[in-house]
């Protein structure tokens, strides 16, 4: 696949062609990483020192500052994977497969962290590490779906294949996630008719909202950095695999 570069490649080519993609994303990594670190520093300061304790929960509200970003990311990353899946199936965009593959492990980690922080938040606040409430249960199911997607990627012996198949499954999952959420909530109201008060409700003063937003932004930028880095490695890995095949084919 040769290309004439008398003029600068179109924006689509820069996005789609692996070599081009590697070239223009290279200068982005360090600034993104620095931005993420800076946001985390600011967020941690706000979360630990510059925000008050909640009048009901005390200091444990500080766990919310790392729980909510992870919960948000668990859904955001899946949405990104779903969009990439559409890109893969509808437009056969070359970067779509790479984006999906890179996002899956990251999403799984953030989902697991959401569960971890949620459990640690629940224990002092409501007495148990795990309670089958609607939100946490849905997050657990989401983690299972992520892990299934990762397992599916690994099941393809050829690392270059499988992208569109995984895309179909990812979209099936995307369609099912609202159904799962609804059914889990239904199941929950069935078995716990007395509603359990969940404190991450609407009323949030600025003193609590600000650290929350900063931390959420910090985590999101962190994800974008890691995702970009993983995509670049995946592109290189695919290049290595094709070269190895080329070499193997050339041997008599």
């Amino acid at each position, binding site marked *: *696949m*040769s*290309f004439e570069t008398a003029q600068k490649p179109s924006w689509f080519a820069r996005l789609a062609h692996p070599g081009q993609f590697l070239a223009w994303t290279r200068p982005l990594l360090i600034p993104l990483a620095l931005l993420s670190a800076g946001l985390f520093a600011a967020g941690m300061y706000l979360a*630990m*020192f510059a925000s008050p*304790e909640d009048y009901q929960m*005390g*200091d*444990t509200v*500080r*766990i919310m500052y*790392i*729980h909510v970003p*992870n919960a948000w990311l668990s859904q955001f990353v899946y949405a990104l994977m779903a969009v990439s899946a559409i890109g893969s199936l509808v437009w056969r965009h070359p970067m779509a497969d790479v984006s999906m593959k890179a996002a899956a492990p*990251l999403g799984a*980690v953030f989902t*697991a*962290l959401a569960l*971890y*922080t949620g459990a*640690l*938040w629940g*224990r*002092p606040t409501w007495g148990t590490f795990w309670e089958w409430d609607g939100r946490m249960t849905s997050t657990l199911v989401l983690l299972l779906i992520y892990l299934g997607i990762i397992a599916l990627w690994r099941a393809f012996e050829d690392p270059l294949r499988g992208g569109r198949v995984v895309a179909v499954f990812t979209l099936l999952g995307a369609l099912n996630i609202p159904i799962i959420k609804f059914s889990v909530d239904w199941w929950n109201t069935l078995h716990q008719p007395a509603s359990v008060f969940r404190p991450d409700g609407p009323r949030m003063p600025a003193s609590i909202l600000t650290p929350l937003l900063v931390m959420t932004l910090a985590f999101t930028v*962190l994800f974008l950095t*890691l995702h970009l*880095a*993983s995509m*670049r*490695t995946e592109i*290189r*890995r695919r*290049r*290595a695999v094709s*070269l*190895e095949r*080329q*070499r193997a084919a050339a041997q008599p």
Partner: protein
Amino acid sequence: MIDLGPHAVFIVAAYLGVFVAIGVLIALIVLDRRRVEKRLARLEAQGVRRRSAAG
């Protein structure tokens, strides 16, 4: 250190766990990248050229 209240251990465990996990994640990503770069370097040294580069 600021006073984190009676449930400090949970707060610390939460933050610690998250940062350790992120640290491990970053480390794994970096290690993976190094491994792939080594692989590419080895292929380059063996003289395998991309078809497009050969022109």
